[in-house]
């Protein structure tokens, strides 16, 4: 295969049959790619670590974490926000760019959405883990109980609870809905009875009759049109978890958009990573071309500019507002104990991505890979900045303090990372890694 270039067509002209055959063949193979199980094993192990640390957490209590008096929120919230941002990247691509009718989107939306699923799963764990008494998490749900009590609807945390609930459920439904036609294809191409029944059951009898297609087409459009604002609302609300408080460093009106920008950035970075990896592993270069890399890089660049803008505004509003506690807090962020974390975020999220202005670099996969990893780490730093650095300098100096993640904090983080990759690897083992029915349209247009 030739090296990808920004000039590549959105897909090399191949026949429907060739594409379908190639993509649908993967799950029927014992291994989607060479040494597949070898790759799965470590991440499976990490998932085990996650389970272990969760069990110990429930046994011993949140005291095993690094959180303390001034910094009462730590890794749990950092990781939560970080994962949910990563997850949203998928929805942006599959929903937002569906609406814009961007043809390049068809090849990668399956990967993107699958990533959303597992990202959201990882994120969804944390809000419950972080509770002091997680076994009462259901008190967040407004159901008539023997205590005659209800949740407190003014709390951003409750908004968040519903936002996540909605986002996870909707993502699953949207993902499954988009999968239907391909499941039908798989059913009909399956040779072994086992696969036929499996996919047949999942396809629920989708046959591609003109009626089905008619409803399908319309519905999918409308759902996409809802998913796009949904993901924005989710991130605004996550932003409000912080902006809703009077805490210095949090009490800022720009948080909702700021969080959406962050979601764009880390989301695109992660999708880009996955696309680069999977197109090689599954030989999808014919349909995920240099063009895709180029587009995703441009998106990353754009969103990194957004984020940069937000960083600047952060500083501006602090001094423009001129509240003492805020200034103290912000100064601590720039020059204090945790300054490296903040500047790390600036470096990885804003400065380095500027390299992508250079056309040639956008298809230099090694460099882009590094940049993506940088952004993903950088975004974690950004969350660390928002949560920890803001909290460690509250209004009263008598309550100033420090925070350090404990071993269990790190294990849990690693664990969710493991779960994420583990999930995606399992997913590509059973579902087509590319949306075949949408590719057919693309190929049509190429012809």
């Amino acid at each position, binding site marked *: 295969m030739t090296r990808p270039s920004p000039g590549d067509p959105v897909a090399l002209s191949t026949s429907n049959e060739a594409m379908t055959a190639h993509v649908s063949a993967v799950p029927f193979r014992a291994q989607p790619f060479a040494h597949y199980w070898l790759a799965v094993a470590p991440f499976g192990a990490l998932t085990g670590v996650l389970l272990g640390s969760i069990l110990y957490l429930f046994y011993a209590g949140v005291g095993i974490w690094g959180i303390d008096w001034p910094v009462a929120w730590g890794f749990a919230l950092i990781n939560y926000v970080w994962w949910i941002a990563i997850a949203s990247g998928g929805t942006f691509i599959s929903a937002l760019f569906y609406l814009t009718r961007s043809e390049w989107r068809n090849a990668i939306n399956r990967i993107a959405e699958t990533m959303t699923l597992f990202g959201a799963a990882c994120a969804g764990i944390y809000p419950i883990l972080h509770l002091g008494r997680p076994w009462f998490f259901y008190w967040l749900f*407004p159901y008539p109980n023997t205590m005659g009590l209800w949740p407190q609807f*003014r709390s951003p945390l409750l908004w968040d609870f519903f936002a996540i609930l*909605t986002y996870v459920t909707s993502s699953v439904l949207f993902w499954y809905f988009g999968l239907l036609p391909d499941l039908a294809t798989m059913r009909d191409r399956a040779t072994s009875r086992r696969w036929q029944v499996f996919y047949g059951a999942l396809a629920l*009898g*989708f046959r*591609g009759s003109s009626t089905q297609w008619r409803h399908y087409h319309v519905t999918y459009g409308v*759902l996409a049109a*809802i998913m796009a604002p949904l993901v924005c609302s989710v991130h605004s609300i996550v932003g409000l978890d912080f902006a809703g408080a009077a805490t210095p460093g949090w009490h800022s009106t720009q948080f909702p958009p700021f969080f959406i920008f962050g979601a764009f950035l880390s989301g695109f970075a992660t999708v880009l990573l996955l696309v680069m990896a999977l197109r090689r592993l599954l030989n999808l270069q014919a349909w995920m071309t240099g063009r895709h890399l180029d587009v995703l890089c441009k998106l990353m660049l754009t969103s990194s500019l957004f984020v940069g803008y937000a960083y600047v505004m952060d500083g501006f509003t602090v001094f423009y507002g001129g509240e003492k506690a805020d200034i103290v807090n912000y100064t601590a962020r720039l020059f204090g104990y945790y300054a490296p974390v903040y500047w790390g975020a600036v470096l990885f999220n804003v400065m380095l991505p500027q390299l992508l202005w250079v056309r040639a670099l956008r298809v230099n996969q090694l460099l882009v890979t590094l940049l993506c990893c940088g952004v993903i780490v950088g975004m974690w730093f950004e969350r660390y900045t928002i949560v920890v650095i803001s909290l460690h300098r509250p209004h009263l100096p008598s309550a100033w303090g420090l925070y350090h993640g404990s071993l269990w904090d790190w294990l849990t983080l690693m664990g969710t990372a493991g779960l994420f990759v583990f999930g995606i690897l399992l997913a590509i083992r059973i579902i087509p890694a590319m949306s075949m*029915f949408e590719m057919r349209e693309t190929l049509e247009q190429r012809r």
Partner: protein
Amino acid sequence: MRIVVGAFPDETAMQAALGRLREAGFNAIETYGPKPAGEGHSPLPLVILAGGLFGAALGFWWQTHETVQAYPLDIGGRPLFSWPAYVPIALEIGILLAIASGVFGFFVVNRMPRLWEPVDDAPAMRRATSDRWCIAITTETPEQARHALWRFAALEVDEVAA
């Protein structure tokens, strides 16, 4: 009653055949293809809208009821009816119901799950989800239908019981 299924190599061929079959007076016709075919009317958008509005309304009322009637409490000196705070949750519940009603509405409209349909017995159908476009004619007079399909250049014609 019999169903006659003809398979075509691509959409244009099928469309052509379709028109001429209609002229030939075949009405009970359904087509199958591997990719979204043709625009057209669907009730689902309305269903989704309804679901969304219902959800949002329900969510807002629920919150209002619980804070104002069910157990009024002084929370941070805020008014009992703090409507701006109810918007996010109302919105989320609305979206949730909208999307759910969309997806499940789709299944209902198409009476899914329908794992089996008579046409499934036609071998040609098995490629209708990959690279064939099929026309299924339900008719009393299968012979004419087959001839017609052959005439309109079907690659393959099967006949199955309705």
